[in-house]
């Protein structure tokens, strides 16, 4: 460790903080804080990209840094905050597992991700190849965030955090994707969030809530608060 140059140490530190933020998101119940954490993750990604661009002298990394700043640090968090205010969803309901349990599962996921990334790191030739494991872990932890949440809003935050992880993975494995791919992904994410924002309003209009378990039932005449009452009211449904 003492042999590695200081900028690489800083990069590794950024990587570790990204992992930390993923865990913070996994354990966070308040949606506003979740969005703030996402913005912080974007900012860290920006710092890491700038450091890497300065270190390697690859100019296209400056462009992706600018893209990160505009999209992930400023625009998307602003958009999500606006949606939260208009939809008035401030808290997620208790996640499927309790927080401590989710965190422990997350720990196993990290071990799995590090094991998974080991052969990839061995193949890569970049200076940041050790951080690939962290990128995979961030992606899988974002998956876990999406799986354990009920509210559509937190799932979108999980989705965006997963995109951050993918970006970081590409950065540490090959010093970033080709420019055209990066632009394409950025546009995709932007459009996805805009479309999902419209979805939120539709979902709320239909079910009076953003809780996604309402979407699990296919029948139209199912009672609104599905699961609990679904089993107990067959007689009610048969009568015209």
């Amino acid at each position, binding site marked *: 460790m*003492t042999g590695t140059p200081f900028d690489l140490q800083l990069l590794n*530190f950024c*990587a*570790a903080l990204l*992992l930390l933020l993923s*865990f913070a998101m996994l354990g966070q119940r308040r949606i506003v804080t979740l969005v703030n954490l996402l913005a912080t993750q974007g900012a860290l990604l920006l710092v890491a990209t700038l450091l890497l661009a300065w270190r390697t002298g690859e100019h296209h990394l400056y462009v992706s840094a600018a893209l990160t700043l505009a999209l992930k640090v400023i625009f998307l968090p602003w958009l999500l905050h606006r949606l939260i205010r208009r939809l008035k969803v401030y808290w997620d309901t208790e996640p499927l597992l309790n927080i*401590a349990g989710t965190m*422990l599962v997350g720990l196993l996921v990290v071990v799995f991700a590090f094991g998974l990334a080991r052969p990839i790191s061995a193949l890569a030739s970049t200076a940041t190849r*050790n951080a690939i494991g*962290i990128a995979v872990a961030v992606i899988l932890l974002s998956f876990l965030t999406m799986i354990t949440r009920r509210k559509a809003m937190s799932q979108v935050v999980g989705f965006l955090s997963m995109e951050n992880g993918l970006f970081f993975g590409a950065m540490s494995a090959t010093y970033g994707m080709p420019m055209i791919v990066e632009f394409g992904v950025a546009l995709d994410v932007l459009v996805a969030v805009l479309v999902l924002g419209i979805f939120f309003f539709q979902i709320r209009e239909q079910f009076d809530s953003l809780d996604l378990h309402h979407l699990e039932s296919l029948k139209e005449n199912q009672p609104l608060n599905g699961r609990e009452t679904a089993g107990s009211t067959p007689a009610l449904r048969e009568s015209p």
Partner: protein
Amino acid sequence: MKPFEILTQALELIAALAAAPLFLGWVNQCRAWLQNRRAPSIWLPYRGIRKLFHKEAVLADNASTLFRAAPYIVFAAMVVAAGIIPSMGTHLPFTIAADAIALVGLLTTARVFLSLAAMDIGTAFGTLGARREMMVGFLAEPALLMVIFVASMISGTTALPAIADNLATQTLALYPSLAFTAVAFTLVLLAENARIPIDNPATHLELTMIHEAMVLEYSARHLALMEWAAALKLFNYACIGFALFIPWGVAAGGMGPVALLASIPLLGAKLIVAGAALAVIETISAKLRVFRAPEFLATAFIFAVLGLLVHLLLGA
């Protein structure tokens, strides 16, 4: 070097015994300032201990020998622990016999006797406090061990003085793993020393108390020893933190008596900053429900394990 080692050891023990109540007084003073109260004197813990030593001890009728012996055992465990921790110099005669795992064992011994003594009298409060203490303890201990293991893996030894020696003398490097474990250690420190998110040190006779519930039946010299031991525990934890995360300034390596003398004001400065930081943490956070404590300590454990994993992956 042998007399020098013994001198270092003696100096550390005297400093720990003398400075522990002062450190507690400093934390209380900072807390009072932050909460817009008039601060009590920084010497108040000393006066409390002196006053208690002059009083007549009252024991419950059904108190056993264990109840009488516990204050001495707890106090002795804390003093021995203070002897293992390198707060001023890293050349300690105890190093060969006791490493960080033995240190955790000592802290656990103190906890077990404290809890047993609390249950001995058979009052409802004592039993309640003892149970809660054991719950907090069994969750905090693995986290503390994990924190120590990360530092051990970096230095290649489990002896605390050797770890501090190694970290203090090598060239400056950023250790993400140590940053993670520093957070975990702070959480463990708060939980183990009955500080605010888990327990409120300023309460007597409240349903949520943990530490105070256990020492409720003690009086006079027994209580004085218990309170002194609690202050020593806080001091010890602070010094473990210094040894692991900011070891600069201890008389390390082949440094002589001058470095040892220089380490005294440095330790004082570290304690002042740490005490103020502790007061800030306690002021800005609210006390958790007892049933939230496992979540709090699970977070500490996860931070520590993450530190370990990050160390394995990044080699840092």
